[in-house]
């Protein structure tokens, strides 16, 4: 098992509160957790449990009402280039005329208003497409790719940022079994170098490679002994904690 030290903390959330203006109740209440370097963290919880809100807070698109979020010891807004964000692939317009390589190149966008992409940017984008197993698909339109392939293009885009943390929003939704297992293998490969945070509404299943499960339903419960139990009892045992019932899958 990886030896984890306090100095390796990459994300630290301390009693976060967040409420939308239109809502009666807070979406997040007293949420605290820590994520360490090169961990594989699964955040699960029911729909409306605040998962998407939490992601937006982590990448600095929203600001918490109280509490503290630190990513690499800094405000999330200031370390956006260290986070690779993979949104849900089906949230995009299916007719939008963009090619796979152009999607990945977005990861090389420069904040200068008049900046242009360089040859190096293109090569980096091409390499990440190769890495996710989408080499040769550069000029293909996203609309002509399958769900799993679109997912991988979006992962390549996040990797093109040269991030340290990869955050994926519901990556397995609407994917068939084959595409799912491909995705898990890919994430395992990425996990050797980067921290992975995977968000899923599927409370029944968590990838067995997770080093930690955070159950989020307005507030967060952390469960981080998956590794030890796997050694003791093997796969497929059930973990009961608070309101979440979790089956580990391979």
């Amino acid at each position, binding site marked *: 098992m990886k030896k984890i030290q306090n100095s390796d903390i990459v994300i630290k959330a301390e009693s976060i509160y967040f409420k939308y203006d239109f809502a009666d109740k807070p979406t997040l209440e007293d949420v605290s957790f820590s994520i360490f370097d090169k961990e594989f963290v699964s955040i699960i919880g029911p729909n409306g449990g605040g998962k998407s809100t939490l992601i937006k807070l982590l*990448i*600095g*698109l929203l600001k918490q009402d109280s509490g503290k979020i630190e990513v690499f010891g800094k405000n999330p807004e200031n370390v*956006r*280039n260290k*986070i690779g*964000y993979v*949104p849900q692939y089906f949230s*995009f*317009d299916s*007719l*939008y*005329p*963009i*090619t796979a390589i*152009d*999607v990945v*190149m*977005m*990861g090389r*966008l*420069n*904040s200068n*208003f008049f900046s*242009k*992409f360089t040859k190096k940017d293109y090569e980096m984008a091409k390499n990440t497409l190769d890495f996710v197993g989408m080499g040769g698909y550069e000029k293909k*339109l996203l*609309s*002509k790719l399958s769900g799993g392939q679109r997912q991988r293009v979006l992962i390549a*885009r996040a990797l093109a*940022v040269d991030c340290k943390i990869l955050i994926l929003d519901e990556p397995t939704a609407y994917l068939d079994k084959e595409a799912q297992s491909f995705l898990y293998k890919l994430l395992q490969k990425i996990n050797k170098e980067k921290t992975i945070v995977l968000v899923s509404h599927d409370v029944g299943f968590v990838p067995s490679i997770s080093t930690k499960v955070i159950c989020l339903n307005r507030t967060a419960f952390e469960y981080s002994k998956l590794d030890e139990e796997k050694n003791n009892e093997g796969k497929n045992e059930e973990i009961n904690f608070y309101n979440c019932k979790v089956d580990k899958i391979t």
Partner: protein
Amino acid sequence: MLSFIVYIFSYSFLLYAFLALIGISILSATVGTYVTINRFSYIAGALSHSILFGLGLFNYLKSIFISNKFLAESLFTPLNGAFLSGILFSLIIAYLYNNKNERLDTILSAIWSIGMSAGILFIFLTPGYNQELTRYLFGNILLVSLKEIIILFIFTIFILLIFSFFYKKILSIGFDNEFALLMGQNVKLFNTIFILIISFAIVLLTQVVGIVLLIALLTLPSSTILKFNLSLKKTMILSGILTFIVGFLGLYLSFTFNLPVSPITILILGAIYIIIFILKSGLKS
């Protein structure tokens, strides 16, 4: 058809219409594809109708200051009024859009109808018969002047340069503005500039096709071509070619059967869109 082509080079008004059609096709295809992929057609609709406010107001002011040559002929021209009201409404719409105003569609409807009503009121108050304003409402490519063609072409070249320079950013921000924002892009500034550009294009196109039919010209060709799943560049080029061919056909039918050119052109574009839509949906299911 062959004799029609001969006519084009014998009558200057037909030649001007033909030249204008080339400019319109390039401009409306480029800006129109941008409008369609960003789902801005309601924004373009509100802009195109609300500029009647500026047109009407400046036409009214022109009639008041008719004795002053500078004011009447250089400052208070309907075209200037349209540009200024276009800028004003673009900035309001861009602000609301950028701040994700939940009631954007309601506010767009308000801008749409208030701008148009104010315009019609000023037309009513203006003494005399306003042929120019009728033209802005319904357009007539056969009345286009050489000066208007030159302005149209200069602006079209300017638009092409901007779109080719910002091509990748247009593509990226339109696809996923949240991610673009994470990458440090000034998405709000970008949207504002391009909504302004849409308004300029609308003002210039209004002179030729008219307010009422402009939205069709901006959205139908690009929506038709988008059904074929091509890259953005190809979609723009083919939309331009489609607009040109149908515009030419419209011109021919209008000339031969003495029909108004804008409605006939839009009807053909609409028919093509519906046929492609049904064929493509049928193939899917």
